[in-house]
């Protein structure tokens, strides 16, 4: 057992859009230790979402290699990637991506039904402070509440990895802080390796590690010696 959650080697990704080739990643070498909360920073088009998607098995690399612990993701087929996502990864998206026709509890159940060792949907929702909103439909919840349902859905299967793409992007600062508290709580309580994409510079102060991307490359990497609590940041 290594202490490394993710390791990448000269990871590249090229999107072909019509006649135009877009180089989203241009040789990324990265190592993320287990149990850390890392923040990926960067401008639009810097490649952070692509990197996160490849780490999460949502997308495949054009070249280069990626390992999760001992598993080489870049060597896996679609079926293995599905199993990898199902067993190890939780996702939180900017726009929540809840199923509108299912209640909060059912949205979480969607995951717990296929997970190996899930917590109860109600427990997962309680951990993000939504124990009173179990049977509400997404349309009946505020943006922050919806995002917390998404986090509950992500953590309900006790994943080793939690990948968050702009989890506070659509939220005001007060609501965003509640979401960050939930993320930090999960990271600390379960030791879940968490990777958060954000435009929000304030958030980097609560992470262990901050990685800056630009134009498909890592331009800097910084480890926080002193981390702030979510309640101490503002934006």
């Amino acid at each position, binding site marked *: 057992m290594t202490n490394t959650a993710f390791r990448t080697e000269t990871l590249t990704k090229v999107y072909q859009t019509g006649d135009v080739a877009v180089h989203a990643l241009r040789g990324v070498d990265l190592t993320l230790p287990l149990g850390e909360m890392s923040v990926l920073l960067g401008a639009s088009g810097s490649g952070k979402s692509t990197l996160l998607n490849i780490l999460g098995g949502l997308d495949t690399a054009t070249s280069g290699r990626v390992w999760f612990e001992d598993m080489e993701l870049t060597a896996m087929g679609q079926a293995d990637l599905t199993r990898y996502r199902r067993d190890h990864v939780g996702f939180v998206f900017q726009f929540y991506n809840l199923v509108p026709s299912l209640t909060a509890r059912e949205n979480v*159940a969607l*995951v717990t039904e296929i997970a190996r060792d899930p917590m109860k949907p109600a427990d997962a929702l309680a951990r993000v402070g939504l124990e009173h909103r179990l049977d509400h439909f997404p349309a009946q919840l505020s943006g922050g509440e919806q995002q917390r349902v998404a986090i509950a859905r992500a953590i309900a299967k006790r994943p080793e990895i939690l990948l968050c793409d702009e989890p506070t992007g*659509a939220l005001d600062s007060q609501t965003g802080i509640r979401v960050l508290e939930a993320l930090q709580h999960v990271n600390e309580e379960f030791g879940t390796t968490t990777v958060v994409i954000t435009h929000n510079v304030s958030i980097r102060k609560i992470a262990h590690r901050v990685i800056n991307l630009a134009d498909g490359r890592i331009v800097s990497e910084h480890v926080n010696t002193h981390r702030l609590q979510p309640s101490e940041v503002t934006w």
Partner: protein
Amino acid sequence: MSALDRKVLRDLARLWAQGLAIAMVLAAGVATLVLGIGAQNSLSETRAAYYERYRFADVFAGAKRAPEEVADRLAAIPGVAAVHTRIKEVALLDIPDQSEPATGVFLSLPVTGRPRLNDFYLLSGRLPDPDSRHEVLANETFAKEHGFQAGATFAAILNGKKRDLVITGVMMLPEYIYALGPGDLVPDGRRFGVFAMPYKALAGAFDLDGAFNDVAVDVLRGTTEAAVIDAVDEILAPYGGVGAYDREDHQSNAFIDAELVQLRSMSFVIPPIFLAIAAFLVNITIARLIALEREQIGLMKAIGYSTWAVGFHYMKLVMLIALVGVVIGWGAGWWLGRGLTRLYGDFFNFPFLIFTMRPDIYMIAAGAGLAAAVVGAVNAISGVVRLPPAVAMSPPAPPRYRKLFTERLGLLKRAPMALTMALRNITRWPIRASLTTLGLALSIATLVGAMFAEASVDLMLEATFFGAERQDATLTFTEITPIRAVEAARQLPGVLRVEPFRTVPIRLSKGHLSERTSLSGKPLNGDLSRVIDFDLNPISLPDQGIAMSDMLADLIDARRGDLVTVEILAGRRETHEVRVTAIVQDFFGLSAYANIATLNTLLRDGNAVDGVHIAFDANDREDLFARVKEIPAIAAIALQGRSLKLFRDIVERNILTMMWVYTLLAVVIAFGVVYNSVRIQLSERARELASLRVLGFTRAEVSFILLGELTLLCLVAIPLGWVLGFGMAWIVIQGLQSELYRVPLIVNRDTYGYATAVFVTVAVVSALVVRNRIDHLDLIAVLKTRD
């Protein structure tokens, strides 16, 4: 229940309107199949059971007068199981309170009670006393039309002598399921009756004691009927036999056959077309519906559901929609089929109706319906589930629109923005636009296919009653009469014109092909009863040779100029080689025509006639009818005006009812297609439209942009639908052709017009329903979600 299954149900609830529209389209297809085949099966099983129970014979023959001993010789023919001999005579009736003379067929009842073959079902009353000279059983339609029950009386002119008769009971006969009087084109219970009378009384009236003039034969299974027919003909020839025939040529049976053929074509031609169209529409609709679920599919894959699990999840949704359609279709088809069977049951005279539900048809209909939905879904789902989840979850890359060809040429620069947007959308997704157009066109085609029949039948009536048979009445004589009877007929009250006719049963053959039919002799330049072609122009009969309908010519492979063999099945029963001098297109029967003089030459019995067609002054109608009733030589009178009216009634009841049913189903299909097209467009473009609203466009403008594209597609679809509709009408017509009548293919402007009007109405209504949704677009919510 798993969360995923709960999602299926909630999605179904959310998409109920669209789901129902798809289900209804499918239901229409399923219903046509169940309806047509259900009615057809019920009818043919009812007939089979009726025949079986009342021992309907296999071979029938008439003679002039055969001694009763001949029956034993007939029974000795190899393969004959049973023989029933009887007297069958036609007579004019005089019914109280009815000025028009009616015609009756009188059948003798055996001394022993009931007939061995061609038995009857006694609805009410009792059998006549075998020794009574006045008691009869009357058939049900005649009794019903006149309100006659046991005890009612009327008179008949039996062999020239008027006799008062008493009805002792009411019956139904398997040989008169379709009870057509002599010279009539349609059954008329008021003017035609069938009566069963004790043998003694009937034999006495017609001097046939110890003899018979009609025979029914039951043939053992496995025996060729042709051999029995030949043997019967040979035995009866010395007794004036007029050619034995089998069930196929039995008038009532042949009409039901024709009706069954028609129903079969209705159930094997229209339903597969409807079902195929429904399948296609369901296919394209579901494909687009699934495409809209792209993000949720991506999400489920991101969470860790396998491609199969996601695919199966959507398949469940589609199957549920399809299942609803199938169940509605089953129900509607069963209900309509039962109604149709009843309708036919009224029209034909059956003592009972057997409703059959063939499970295989229900299964086939369901299978086809479900398969259509599944195939549509598989295509769409596989397209989406194959995408990597990251790609699926993000909306599809913005489509690369191009400037229109016309724009590049500098045209259309000033075109309204809505038109430009609509045109660019169409050119951006040409396949989708083509499929939608095809779907719209097919729904117009089904409307044309459902509606065209009326014009065709109108032409048929026009041709028959105003082009060909223009007489007011046809008088049939009791026997072959010298030509001077024409002069006598001219002296009847009110008679303006008289034309003689002669008809003999013949077997027409060329090479190894032969057909039993009749040869009609008409005057050379007749004006009342004419032969007309498909352009409704009268054909002057050739001086020599015979003319025949193209249907008959096809059956014996005869062409103009060919020599054919005419075997006369009456009188001297001679065989002649005759040249075919004209082939005509006609609408009824399998007829051959000749100049009456030519026919008389062939028959070698002088200048004789079977009856006359007359035109009369309507003011003298009562006098004429009163006089006709007194003339012993007249066996029957057919009235064209009455036939036309009855024909119209039948057409309205049967063909138009059927037409309305199919039109209704076509409307359902059209609505389903248009509604779903607009509804899916709205989902696909909700964001774009909401953005326009935010920018300050009015609801009307936004609706215009959404509906503009559909309008353009409709404009292309309408003419295409006409062409497809004509093709569909052609296919339907092919199925309607029978030896008894041909329906001409007429798809006129009215039909196209009605179909288009219905389609446009349906389109506008569905557009308005969707328009209501545009008015309620949640602008903030739409903009809040990501692009």
